[in-house]
């Protein structure tokens, strides 16, 4: 076990996979010699050579097309998209090609690719370095979408993603790369040091895709969150005084519906918490599922606490960002409902 931040944990996952499997290779903008703008691929080119970890043209569509072709050949490419905001030029490749190749070819070809991308806000990145586009992937059958919330999970999930025979979108909440974040920009910046989930094995292990974690047990309300928002939720729950159960989804496709339903049936209340804009966000699917499966158990309306319906506004980052206060209010509203 070594103390690692999220970046180091991801780097370690890539290192392990490059070591174990000659079919794994890594590419993306600035990931080679330089080691990536967030240093996730640091030293991998040096260690494994330029053909295992290399830079690409600035062409997200080209990166994913290349990865799919490699996957069809039999490799397990790991492509980095520098920011999730810039994944959209590759959206057609992901949806029309990666997600469907196995199905449409009757199983003859498939695209076992992993697409890593730093994701989410909270770093004063403005409109184009802050977005959370998970909903547009979740709707596309054939893609898996993973969002880790801590170093231990990040490494285990990334290894599982690379070993997975399906295309996986692996979204890395960049705000928690260096430390957990409770949603309060004015408090002191924390590092991962000392965090129990920053204790990471150095070798190979996996965290299965599709298994949620109970980040906090509780009886009164179920909170559904993923990525950065798991930490913000812990702060919001603490503030609220409500004994909430917090579920860290870890992957939104596949979704661990059993854990969700069991919790809501126990608590009778549910608040969904994400950073993306609310309208048509992934919270809508969660709300619909919970409502369909726990109707008789619900004692208050399922609530969604999410980003406002607008482009991510630079100067208003903390007005847009759904912080602990907004969650705490929702929890109290849920408890007071009758």
């Amino acid at each position, binding site marked *: 076990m070594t103390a690692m931040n999220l970046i180091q944990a991801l780097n370690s996952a890539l290192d392990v996979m490059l070591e174990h499997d000659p079919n794994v290779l890594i590419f993306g903008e600035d990931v080679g010699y330089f080691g990536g703008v967030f240093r996730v691929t640091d030293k991998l080119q040096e260690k494994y050579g330029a053909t295992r970890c290399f830079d690409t043209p600035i062409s997200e*569509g080209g990166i994913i097309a290349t990865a799919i072709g490699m996957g069809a050949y039999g490799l397990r490419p790991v492509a980095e998209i520098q920011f999730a905001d810039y994944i959209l030029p590759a959206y057609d490749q992901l949806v029309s090609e990666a997600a469907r190749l196995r199905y449409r070819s009757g*199983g*003859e070809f498939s695209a076992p690719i992993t697409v890593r991308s730093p994701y989410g806000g909270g770093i004063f990145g403005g409109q184009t370095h802050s977005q959370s586009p998970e909903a547009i992937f979740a709707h596309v059958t054939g893609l898996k979408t993973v969002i880790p919330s801590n170093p231990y999970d990040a490494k285990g999930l990334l290894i599982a993603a690379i070993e997975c025979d399906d295309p996986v979108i692996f979204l890395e909440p960049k705000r928690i790369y260096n430390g957990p974040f409770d949603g309060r920009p004015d408090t002191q910046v924390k590092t991962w040091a000392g965090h129990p989930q920053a204790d990471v094995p150095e070798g190979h292990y996996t965290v299965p895709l599709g298994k949620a974690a109970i980040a906090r047990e509780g009886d009164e309300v179920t909170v559904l969150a993923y990525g950065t928002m798991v930490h913000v939720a812990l702060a919001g729950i603490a503030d609220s005084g409500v004994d909430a159960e917090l579920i860290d989804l870890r992957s939104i496709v596949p979704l661990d519906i059993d854990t969700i339903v069991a919790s809501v049936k126990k608590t009778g209340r549910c608040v969904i918490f994400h950073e993306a804009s609310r309208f048509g966000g992934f919270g809508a699917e969660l709300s619909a599922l919970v409502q369909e499966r726990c109707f008789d158990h619900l004692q208050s309306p399922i609530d969604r606490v999410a980003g406002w319906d607008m482009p991510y506004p630079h100067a208003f980052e903390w007005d847009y960002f759904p912080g602990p206060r907004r969650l705490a209010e929702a929890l109290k509203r849920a408890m007071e409902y009758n």
Partner: protein
Amino acid sequence: MTVPNRPTLSLHIPEPSARPGEAPSFAQFDFGTAGAVRRPDSAEPETAMRDLPYELIRVLDEDGKAVGPWNPRLSPDVLKRGLRAMLLTRIFDDRLFRAHRQGKTSFYMKSTGEEAIGAAQSMMLGAGDMCFPTYRVLSWLMARDYPVVQLANQIFSNADDPIKGRQLPMMFSARDYGFYSLSGNLGTRFGHAVGWAMASAYKHDDKIAIAYVGDGTTAEGDFHEALTFASVYQAPVILCVTNNQWAISSFVGFAGGDKTTFAAKATAYALPGLRVDGNDFLAVWAATEWAAERARSNRGATLIEFFTYRVAGHSTSDDPTKYRPLDEPEKWPLGDPIVRLRDHLIAIGEWDAERHQALVDDVTQAVKDGVKQAEAVGTLGQSKPDIATMFEDIFAEPDWRICEERKTMGL
């Protein structure tokens, strides 16, 4: 600082040389002469061959003779196999087009006039190489003896459809025949070929990839991205543009094809660009051989434009007489690839009318038999794969959503 006044601007909209009711004209093109274009060694640097994209590589001359440095000197046996593959394609196309009229399939697309391309390339390249096709290279599969019945099963979406009824007719996938999964999205697989070729190089393998787009599809961003990656990583891939003058109803000018050649696009990426008579089986073969040699020698990618003409409508949904002169196809100066190869075989004393008729009969029978066999399994709607297969292959393993939905259907 002001600029002197000028006549006001106006917006240019390209127009083809002729519309219905007008006389077709190909006067805007220079077709060159068979045998005239030099054939540099494929090891030469790209900078030494920037003239090539503006010439038209032709081997078969007006008398059916094979001439010039690009003559691939094929054995009569190879030529006859090529002729058979093209005829199979032509006759299969005609039969299945009629099958659509009879409601036996939802859709069909012919490659009439373009059969030389896939046929020559399929024969020239190795079994382990991978073709990333469009819907207009059926002759690739024909040249490799892909079973006619399987094609028809796919086109009828019947119980034996090898891709389980999941796709529109013509969207074949045939891994064992070096034929990658097709789909309706134009251009998206061009980059897959580059990735596949890069993977082959990465693994120190000896296989190369070949991919196609139509003239119209060159306008997609994917085209540029694939060429950029092919150039940067020197991928062992042959990238082809089948320039058949039309993209549904849009003439080639809407892809910039009235201003320069498609082969010239290679220059933007420092890749060799060849412009080839696509209706000349020998020229197609020779250019492919040259590009394959280059790729296999680790010298990277080549862009080849096949200059050809889409003789039939775009698909069964299209009526080309609505937007181009009725007789434009027959006026195409580069003729019919089947006729030209037949005449060449005759010219070299390896063929005659009788043998040709025998081949036509044989192929017609093969098509008939294969299609009949498929019809016995069922045409569109008469039979289809087991419904439960609809829920398979979505992921490697189905998740609960798929399991629940399948259960809802009682399967």
